[in-house]
């Protein structure tokens, strides 16, 4: 009788705990954690990778750039995904981390489709997001209040946007959303809404605007005519080795860069005509190898 109860109570728990502690898995996996903007890209690449290398698996998790950087710093994962340079984030010691720029992503302002505004200047944008312009009328649109939708603080997209548009101005306290999907849905359904998002997320439910007359296209990003863009980083703790190294090489390979990265709306790093440093210094790249 006692045995029966022992089995019922203790066994499942004990088994599970044992499983958790001393479990040797067959097959191999690495974990990449971080930026939710980068997550779909890495996931897609990981899928392709596993198809070609059965039994080797890339575990991709979101959680935000902050999570990615802090986890890679403590070494609990193999790869930390980030929309930001590690050194931009407080609390991160960037010196031990190795940066792999795997893609470039452009960020564009988006507005509700019902607003007939086609072009904004950087200054106008900055004034909208700092709360100095509050009505579309001031921008040649209809008499409609501007509903500003911002991204969560610390998000990479917001950081990029503020860095290249706001240029030091502080943002007005407004609605903030954690995720691009939510932002898109809100902009699509809320009259007078304006926000910004990475190129891959733009679809027909929202409308992009030109900034200073430049249309938000990949081509304009590659020449830095469209300035609001950033690198997508995958950090490793020290130089990668083993599976991590192979996966990093794989994701930077031409086939993935052309097939997956470009298809999803990111811009392959190799297509860039310029490179931009952490401080914002732009250097043209000579593409003759």
């Amino acid at each position, binding site marked *: 009788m006692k045995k029966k109860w022992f089995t019922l109570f203790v066994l499942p*728990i004990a088994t599970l705990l044992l499983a958790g502690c001393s479990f040797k*898995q067959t097959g191999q996996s690495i974990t990449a954690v971080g930026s939710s903007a980068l997550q779909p890209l890495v996931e897609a690449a990981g899928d392709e990778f596993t198809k070609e290398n059965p039994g080797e698996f890339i*575990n991709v998790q979101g959680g935000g750039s902050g999570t990615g950087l802090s986890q890679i710093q403590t070494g609990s994962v193999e790869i930390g995904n980030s929309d930001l340079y590690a050194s931009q984030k407080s609390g991160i010691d960037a010196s031990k981390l190795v940066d792999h720029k795997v893609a470039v992503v452009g960020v564009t302002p988006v507005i509700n489709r019902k607003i007939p505004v086609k072009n904004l200047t950087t200054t106008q944008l900055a004034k909208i997001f700092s709360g100095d312009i509050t009505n579309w009328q001031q921008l040649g649109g209809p008499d409609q209040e501007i509903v500003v939708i911002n991204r969560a603080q610390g998000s990479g997209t917001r950081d990029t946007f503020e860095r290249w548009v706001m240029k030091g101005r502080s943002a007005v306290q407004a609605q903030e959303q954690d995720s691009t999907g939510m932002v898109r849905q809100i902009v699509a359904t809320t009259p007078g809404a304006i926000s910004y998002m990475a190129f891959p997320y733009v679809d027909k439910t929202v409308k992009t605007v030109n900034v200073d007359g430049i249309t938000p296209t990949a081509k304009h990003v590659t020449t830095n005519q469209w300035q609001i863009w950033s690198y997508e980083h995958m950090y490793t703790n020290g130089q990668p080795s083993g599976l991590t190294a192979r996966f990093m090489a794989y994701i930077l390979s031409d086939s993935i860069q052309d097939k997956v990265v470009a298809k999803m709306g990111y811009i392959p790093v190799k297509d860039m005509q310029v490179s931009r440093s952490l401080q914002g210094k732009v250097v043209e790249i000579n593409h003759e190898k």
Partner: protein
Amino acid sequence: MNPRKWDKVATTVLYMISVFIIAVLAFLLLYILISGLPHVTWHFITGRSSSFAAGGGIGIQLFNSLYLLILSMLISIPLSLGAGIYLSEYAPKNWLTDLIRNMIEILSSLPSVVVGLFGFLVFSINMKLGFSILSGALALTVFNLPLLTRKVEDSLQSVHYTQREAGYALGLSRWETVIHVVVPSALPGILTGMILGAGRVFGEAAALIYTAGQSSPPLDFTNWNPTYIASPLNPLRSAETLAVHIWKINSEGIIPDASAVSAGASAILILFVLLFNFAARYFGNKLYRHLTGARERG
């Protein structure tokens, strides 16, 4: 207005409130099912999800939800049963017991985000389980334990005291009486509680985002060896559940058919919750009839 008229008015109002509540539920269910079911196909239910292209399914997520549910119930049922029995039968009436009850109640009103973050901190990081089914199951256990314990305790308490006395008077220990007399009598209530708890676990997302993770390896449904990395049974792999998937595609929305997928997934989720409810009702009643001997009479 005289009392009788008031009585009529009040009764009407009460009827209206009841109808309203039923209408709210009917609306919710219909809304979800109508907007979701058209997207549900066999391919959708069993297919792989896609990370950026349209036409992904929810097969793996559904499997993950069920597997995670089973694992967490495997941990939480014995624990809650034991704890419920302790509280109902053994706990002396003193401040310590009150404190324990208090703690359990606080645990039950704990926001699931906090549970999720705690799970992330303790199971994923400190215990080095990472983003895995196991840490998800443990977090769900934390989330589910207080309610199950309470349900077990309540069910045991609702078994009449005379039943216990009958056992004691026959020289049986409290433990034997509880296990062989009280628990069987309370089983319908316990079972109902467990199944309803399962429904709650099934739909929980916030506690899982940081513990079980937001993606799954491409599972190899031909290899059931739990130690293989892509095996469906591997408890250390990460596992995105159905509820998390809904949350994720709603917030990421990079796949073009995000709204269709989330509507379809919601419909499936609701169907399962309905299933759990009806199962709870059916098995609870059946067990009750079985125990009270109505079967023999009928």
